């Protein structure tokens, strides 16, 4: 169970384009960002997401965790995720 919940208003496209259906805001994210959002949507835990990032992008645990935390912080600022 993830400790973060992606907004139910957020639509994510294949290309990494994000659209908030209730505010009209749109964003683009890179491959890593898209991966994190998809894993959050699947309700994966922080540990599971970090492990998946390490495997997919061939980075060490420290880098994966830093990327995850930075990205989550941005998502929280934009009100795209909430703590569940």
């Amino acid at each position: 169970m993830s400790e973060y919940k992606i907004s139910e208003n957020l639509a994510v496209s294949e290309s990494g384009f994000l659209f908030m259906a209730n505010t009209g805001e749109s964003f683009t994210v890179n491959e890593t960002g898209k991966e994190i959002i998809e894993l959050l949507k699947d309700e994966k835990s922080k540990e599971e997401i970090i492990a998946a990032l390490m495997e997919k992008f061939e980075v060490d645990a420290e880098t994966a965790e830093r990327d995850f935390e930075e990205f989550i912080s941005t998502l929280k600022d934009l009100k795209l995720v909430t703590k569940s």
Partner: protein
Amino acid sequence: MKVAITGLNNIDSPGPGVPVIRGIRDSGKFDGEIIGLIYDALEPGAYMPQVADRSYIIPYPSAGVNSFYERLSQIHSIENLDVIIPTLDAELFAFSKLAPSLEKLGIKTFLPTKEQLILRGKDKLLDFCKKNNINAPFNIVATSVNDLYKLPPTLQYPLVIKGIFYDAYVAHNFQEATSYFSKIAAKWGLPVIVQEFLQGEEYNVVALGDGSGTTIGAVASKKTYITEKGKGWAGVSIYDETLLSISKKIVEILNWRGGAEFEFVKRSDSGEFYLLEINPRFPAWVYLAVGAGQNLPYAALQLARGEKVEPFENYEVGKIFIRYSWDLIVDMKKFEEISVKGVIKND
């Protein structure tokens, strides 16, 4: 069937006439003619292809309701109009007043009543909201520049200075406020609204009420490209349950009859929606509603004709409108036609 429509001024701050006509034509069920009613010989909608079949110059209602009615009767004697759809704020009182006389001529309208127009007025909106438990920014109705000297403590700069019909400026200090007050009073007359400035994002809803409390349709949008004049030249359809339920509540309370636009701000601090304005007609962006699946202009025409219209249940979110400008090249003969005869026939 012949339907006359105003607001063909497709200029930088466009009137809603052209998108209303496009909606009616797009319905695929309209096989009549569209008659444009224009206040200026150069209103672009009169010259645009596939918009109005013919357009007639009419006098401003402010020049007197009698001469306004006479001109409409004269056009009716030539065209035999079935319905008139006015789309501009400043003419609505006149059309609402004339509705029974027009009905006698056989011309149908579907307009808010005089009482509804008064209740939603910018000078009455705060009272309406307080009474019905709807959030709205605090304001005072200023009838003289002296009122700016004795603002209540709840009104701190920056403030929004608004005209009774159009225009709004953000004043950051007393000097700016007096300057905007004079500018607006000179253009739109008194009173002038002095309103609390709320930090947040603006959202809009276009709606159609059936006159007995039911919302026939409502589509919410967010402007995504705003000009210096504050006009949205691009926007996207969005869905927010709270926003739409407040809009439907307003339609229900007022028994709103006809098209309307509700302007809201979502406060950055609380996330709550505050009602800024009720515009008593379709907005210029109404074609987005058509594109998103709610043909509100055609539904308004059906209501005017006394047809039963089932409420729309949903619409497509994420549809974008992008407005553009386009130079038409027109022969002087056309301009001569409208200038001399007061009517222009579109090819």
